[in-house]
């Protein structure tokens, strides 16, 4: 078993008077795909956003690829290049083409010359099968295509870990497949992934481990067959039952 590449210990997060994360421990091994499920407000997105310090945890420790993410001396901008993130709302830059979206960080953060940055951006777009849309603006792409461009934007930086925050929740049903396909291919290439999502079919097929969160804590975790087929905790059972009925 390989060592943990993501390690969160005792993570707490307060938003004002709201206690959103109540001591979460999560370790993700290299090449592992971890699915995080749970009712809305359970803290799963907040946990994900703490991993790359988009949210500042109130307490606890987070290590990614050997870097202490919460250490003040850590160059957070450098560390974040190793952690790709994909959002529910895509968050593509609307004033840039697909190619421009993917190339921006390659140029400005990694300092590549324009031609090289664009060549690498094009390769990233090819990996999500959108090379032919390189010159399109986000407004000219479907939601599914936009999300795949967002995936390309993240993987272009060759991260060690990818975080997905409800990547298909904002999509029309017929557009979900393309995004899941891109994620499946990413997984096959050996990417370590942490996915917050309700795509249970995908979880069953692709996840190594499913983590169920409720009330700011991890209630139960295990292989997908165990969590979906034979949940041990009452709350897990209730939640699985609810989403299976849909």
């Amino acid at each position, binding site marked *: 078993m390989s060592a943990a590449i993501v390690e969160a210990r005792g993570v707490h997060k307060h938003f004002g008077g709201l206690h959103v994360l109540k001591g979460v421990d999560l370790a993700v091994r290299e090449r592992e795909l971890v699915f995080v499920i749970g009712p809305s407000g359970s803290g799963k997105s907040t946990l994900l956003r703490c991993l790359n310090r988009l949210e500042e945890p109130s307490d606890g420790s987070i290590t990614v690829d050997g870097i202490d993410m919460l250490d003040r001396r850590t160059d957070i901008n450098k560390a974040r290049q190793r952690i790709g993130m994909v*959002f529910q*709302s895509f*968050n593509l830059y*609307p004033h840039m083409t697909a190619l421009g979206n993917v190339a921006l*960080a390659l140029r400005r*953060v990694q300092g590549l010359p324009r031609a090289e940055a664009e060549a690498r951006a094009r390769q990233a777009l090819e990996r999500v099968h959108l090379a032919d849309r390189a010159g399109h603006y986000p407004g000219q792409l479907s939601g599914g295509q936009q999300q795949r461009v967002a995936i390309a934007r993240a993987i272009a930086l060759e991260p060690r870990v990818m975080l997905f925050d409800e990547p298909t929740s904002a999509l029309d049903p017929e557009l979900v497949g393309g995004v899941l396909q891109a994620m499946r291919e990413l997984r096959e290439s050996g990417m370590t992934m942490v996915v917050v999502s309700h795509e249970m079919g995908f979880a069953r097929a692709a996840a190594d481990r499913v983590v169920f969160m409720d009330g700011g804590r991890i209630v139960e975790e295990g292989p997908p067959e165990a969590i979906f087929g034979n949940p041990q905790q009452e709350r897990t059972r209730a939640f699985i039952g609810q989403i299976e009925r849909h």
Partner: protein
Amino acid sequence: MSFDEFLQAFFSLEILQQAWPILWAGLLNTLLLSVVVVPLGFLGGLILALLGTVHSRWVRWPLIAWVDLFRSLPPLVLLVFVYAGLPFAGLEVTALTAVAIGFFLNTGAYYGEILRAGIESVPRGQVEAARCTGLTAAQAMAHVVLPQAVRNVLPDLISNTLEVVKLTSIASVVALPELLFQARQAQSVTYNATPIMAAAVIYFILLWPVVRLLSRLENRQMAGRR
């Protein structure tokens, strides 16, 4: 008054010919003022808008006070104050410098409020996406937020710019002979309204294309295309 007399009083080619060198000098000054004052005001506004993104009360409160002060002061009063007041502080300023300072303070406050609204119109997720790829806060502002912010408030920026160009006529109070000042000089020398009419036409020719552009942009935004 006959029609001929009317023409003679307001649209005399002869008078125009005599007054033209004076008007021309005024026009050049108005252009010079606009070219100095618009970028300066925009720069001032940009500084204020960027300071507005700092979440510290030590920045926020002085900033609000500053913007309120310079939006409340009539630009004319401000200009006289700068021109007549700074010498008492030991700073002799030329008329152009005084106008530049006055507009930097006054129009900067207006451009600043417009740009602030633009920055706030950009969804939070844009910055998050940029920061996630390793861009610094400043890079995210420069490459992701500001281009969208400016585009979102472009009609307001252009509208304000029109006002600023028209407002340059107040430079005459500090004896800077811009277009309107020169036209009035020519009027008083010739006892004829033609120079004033000419100045009006010149302003119109200068600003009308910008007004058209503004309308087109507003229509486009109205149609929901961003």
